[in-house]
């Protein structure tokens, strides 16, 4: 399913450098982004999102004018590398405490709708 989504998306969304001046999004694109983000939107939400998301995308599009030739993308505010800790057990098993917040559990397992037939 993910593969299909990717292919469809490329065909569907025009890139910012595609020659089309406005990057504004349409309803199908918004529905598609919502699907990628696993968000079910009501119809009126989609209409509203088309307008507001388009404005945001148009707004951030001004970044394309920034003088960034030969600039290395910033990876970390302090240019620090990722610190690793020793691989040892530091906490006791807290499964039951953690699962108190789970909407559906059974015998220590999280319950989801059937995935395989």
């Amino acid at each position: 399913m993910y593969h299909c989504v990717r292919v469809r998306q490329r065909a569907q969304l025009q890139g910012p450098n595609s020659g089309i001046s406005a990057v504004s999004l349409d309803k199908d694109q918004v529905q598609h982004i919502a699907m990628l983000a696993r968000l079910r939107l009501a119809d009126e939400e989609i209409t509203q999102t088309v307008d507001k998301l388009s404005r945001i995308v148009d707004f951030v599009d001004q970044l394309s004018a920034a003088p960034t030739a030969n600039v290395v993308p910033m990876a970390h505010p302090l240019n620090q590398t990722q610190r690793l800790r020793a691989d040892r057990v530091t906490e006791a098993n807290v499964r039951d405490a953690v699962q108190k917040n789970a909407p559906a559990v059974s015998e220590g397992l999280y319950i989801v709708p059937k995935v395989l037939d």
Partner: protein
Amino acid sequence: MELHVQTLTELKAGLDRGDFSSVELTQAMQARIAQHGESLNAFITIMDDAALAAAQLADEKRAAGDGGVLNGLPIVHKDIFCTRDVLTTCGSRMLENFISPYDASVVERLSDAGAVVLGKSNMDEFAMGSSNETSYFGPVKNPWDLDRSPGGSSGGSAAAVAARLAPAATGTDTGGSIRQPAALTNTVGIKPTYGRVSRYGMIAFASSLDQAGVITRSAADAALLLGVMAGFDERDSTSVDHPVPDYVAGLEASLKGLRVGIVRQHFDSGLDHATGEAVREALQVLQAQGATLTEVDLPNLDYCVPTYYVVAPAECSSNMSRFDGVRFGRRADNPEDLLDLYSRSRGEGFGEEVKRRIMTGTYVLSAGYYDAYYLQAQKVRQLISDDFRKAFESVDVIAGPTTPTPAFKLGDKTDDPITMYLNDIYTIGANLAGLPAISAPCGMVQGLPVGLHLVGPHWAEESLLRTVHQYQSQTDWHRACPEAFR
């Protein structure tokens, strides 16, 4: 003097002298919250019994000659910090029933030092907002004018401190969420250097920008709290092992020779005239105290907001993916299949602004767009960071307004996300560059507070706190209290 009007530092001295007990102090604050909490909508959870028990324990410790640096002092936590066995909602329907199984490091450190937690403050949903109007629990009101926003996202913390319902509160700041509400409510708000305070147990929004800090009524109070909160934590992989100075001891040094940079671009169009005048007057006070004023340039300032609205939503869309309706949080009824469970749980659990940011992030990270938006934004972020680095070659702090205008009316900016986003134009740069920054009261415009914004180089919290403390020794804007809450 009545207890609720005293600062944290004054209350600490009162407890030390034995003028009152922590139980008496806690009860006095609880009475204030009972009286005013609802009209401001500043709290999501009030912890009456737990607070009294903690106060009782603090009094016992004190009697035994024991107790930490904050022993018996009441504070409020923004509802973004996980608190064990207490509701932790992050202002969202998604976490409406979430009881945290553990304490955030910030909560743990403050409690270990003896702080008494009065409750959890209201906030924009998942800290995504600048007006507190995105909270699932309704907007917080500004104590200076109940029709106006207290700012956000730490609006509940700021309103509670401004209205004297608590002497101090924790907050978090991703693009201005501590400093902007502090400016709009006449309180002091500090966002430390990225990595200064542990993010462990602080619900993530944009992980390369989020940082915890405090909202208080004086720089001395902020110094007292930050000293307890700051420091290395191995449970946060971005925490930095850098020595924590004694912030309180550092407050008294003079400002003689302090080089203050004024950003040319800050006073351009877009800044409310009277707000700019109040800030200029504050700068003259610093000059009279021995600081030198020079102009500096931040040539990429206009790119701060668009850069932020690529980077922050991108990180948000990734962080928010943990809410799946399976392990914790809201779960849709009768899901047809796994996809339906995910998308309906998230569709129902998240509010409009959060969904919009998740979708913005999903879009800018998607195939074919990553280079044009996300990678480009990270490059511009480097330019912005370089601007600050260059400026700090000639100055010690950069000063300007915290916000372009005083507090705006609730509902005024909800229709256009861009108008709302531009409210953070002066504060976002510090987050993008990971720099410490503080907002302090510096004047009034038509009865509404104005904030002075100071940004320092990495790890310069001490100098920011000292600058504000010295300013507050010569001025009394920070003592101004909204009339209805005296």
